[in-house]
């Protein structure tokens, strides 16, 4: 009887330990920061900054299923590097973290959400490109990712994107990496609802690889280092992540650009990284050169 009880107890401990582990792997929701909030910042009247600041709240779009960048935790709050960036900017507007309304934006609806004013800004692994620039504006980039391939640990036949020609590669339906791997490298696309839904087919060897931005894949590898690995450390595209904003609000865009550089100088950029994605990708990135177009 006693043995039984001890066993029960150890199970519970094991479960909570496993949970704690996955919590930290996902960017430590329990230790999310609350950046110091600016006291009564002053802005030019009628600027977007002044409006948001006096409203005291902001709506930010992010992803809810992107490990390390924006992923919803068990408590319902998103955590990740994108989320930290959003909090830092909100703090500079005098808005505390609990006054931010997080809205899930998926790859396919981000432009529409900005254009229709559903969100004030989007920080959602949002790659800057010319086509999107015709519809929305981008501050940043604040991070430069790149597309990569993830394979099973024992797979040594795939090391570069050319190796997946004619093979099954899993990615999310309607995502840019999915388009690239098909159009440029001739892979056969196996579409899934989320990136995590790709893991099972890879494990079962029904697909040869999963492709998306390296940082996302790194999150999966970190969780299961015995099962998966990156096909190569090299990336084959450049994905500069920007902060999506309403078109032609140059004042707001330039202000955010200034803040990003300030975060870099005062170390909060590095800290945001270390608290989230840095748990997996040890080398902290340098802030890419801001594109002040």
């Amino acid at each position, binding site marked *: 009887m006693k043995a039984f009880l001890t066993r029960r107890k150890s199970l519970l401990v094991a479960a909570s330990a496993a949970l704690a582990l996955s919590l930290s792997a996902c960017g430590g929701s329990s230790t999310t920061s609350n950046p110091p909030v600016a006291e009564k910042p002053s802005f030019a009247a009628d600027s977007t900054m002044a409006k948001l600041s006096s409203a005291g709240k902001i709506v930010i779009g992010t992803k809810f299923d992107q490990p390390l960048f924006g992923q919803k935790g068990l408590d319902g709050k998103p955590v990740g590097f994108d989320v930290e960036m959003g909090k830092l900017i909100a703090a500079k507007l005098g808005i505390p973290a609990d006054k931010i309304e997080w809205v899930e934006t998926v790859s396919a609806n981000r432009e529409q959400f900005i254009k229709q004013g559903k969100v004030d800004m989007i920080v959602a692994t949002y790659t800057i490109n010319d*086509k999107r620039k015709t519809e929305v504006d981008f501050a940043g980039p604040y991070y430069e990712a790149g597309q990569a391939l993830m394979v099973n640990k024992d797979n040594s036949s795939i090391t570069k994107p050319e190796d997946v020609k004619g093979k099954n590669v899993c990615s999310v339906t309607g995502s840019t990496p999915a388009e690239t791997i098909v159009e440029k490298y001739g892979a056969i696309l196996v579409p*899934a609802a989320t990136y995590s839904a790709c893991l099972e087919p890879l494990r079962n060897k029904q697909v040869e690889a999963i492709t998306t931005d390296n940082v996302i894949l790194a999150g999966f590898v970190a969780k299961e280092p015995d099962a998966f690995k990156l096909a190569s450390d090299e990336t084959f595209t450049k994905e500069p992540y920007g902060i999506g904003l309403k078109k032609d609000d140059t004042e707001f865009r330039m202000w955010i650009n200034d803040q990003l550089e300030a975060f870099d100088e005062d170390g909060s950029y590095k800290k945001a990284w270390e608290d989230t994605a840095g748990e997996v990708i040890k080398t902290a990135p340098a802030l890419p050169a801001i594109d002040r177009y």
Partner: protein
Amino acid sequence: MDVIIENLPAYVDGFLRTLFLSVVSGIFALIFGTLLAAARVSPIAALRGFSMTYVEIVRNTPLTIAFFFAAVVLPRLGVTFQQFEVAAIIALSAYTSAFIAEAVRSGVNSVPVGQAEAARSIGMKFSQVLSLIILPQALRTVIPPMINILIALVKNSSVAGAFYVLELFGTGRQLANANGDAVLWVLVGVAFFYLLITVPLGYFANLVERKVAIAR
């Protein structure tokens, strides 16, 4: 509008895969569903029980769960397929067969009892009564609802787009991402191709209902 014409090959590709999924799953579902219905009225209690349980469970399970089972759980059991279409076909035909079974059963019940009694009185066995007398008559009343089930099947195949098969809906999502400025037209194109299958089938159902099914 241009976006549809430019991407016509992708649309056609997705359309053909949707058609393929629907036709193959439809055939399996018809066969399996009819067998289930026959089991439901058979003298063997275990068959009746199995058929009833199967239909009850499947009808109350969301299709997404069925897909999840076929595409994710089955591989875990060691049943892996190189083609993801197989998982989609398993999910769709397993799901649809429950509805076919119910339609066939209500068709069987619509055949007047006298038909069965007459057949029995001339000495036919259960299998003969069912296959020679009841089912041929039942199928006539069953055709319109059956076609409606098949229409639903075509539409249901869109769920495969989220489970590793690049069919019409998945193609639409892919195109919507690539053409963020013309999402409306991309989706209108997808809708057009679905209606290309479902509307004629619907008309066919109406026609049959009026012409053939008024057997009584």
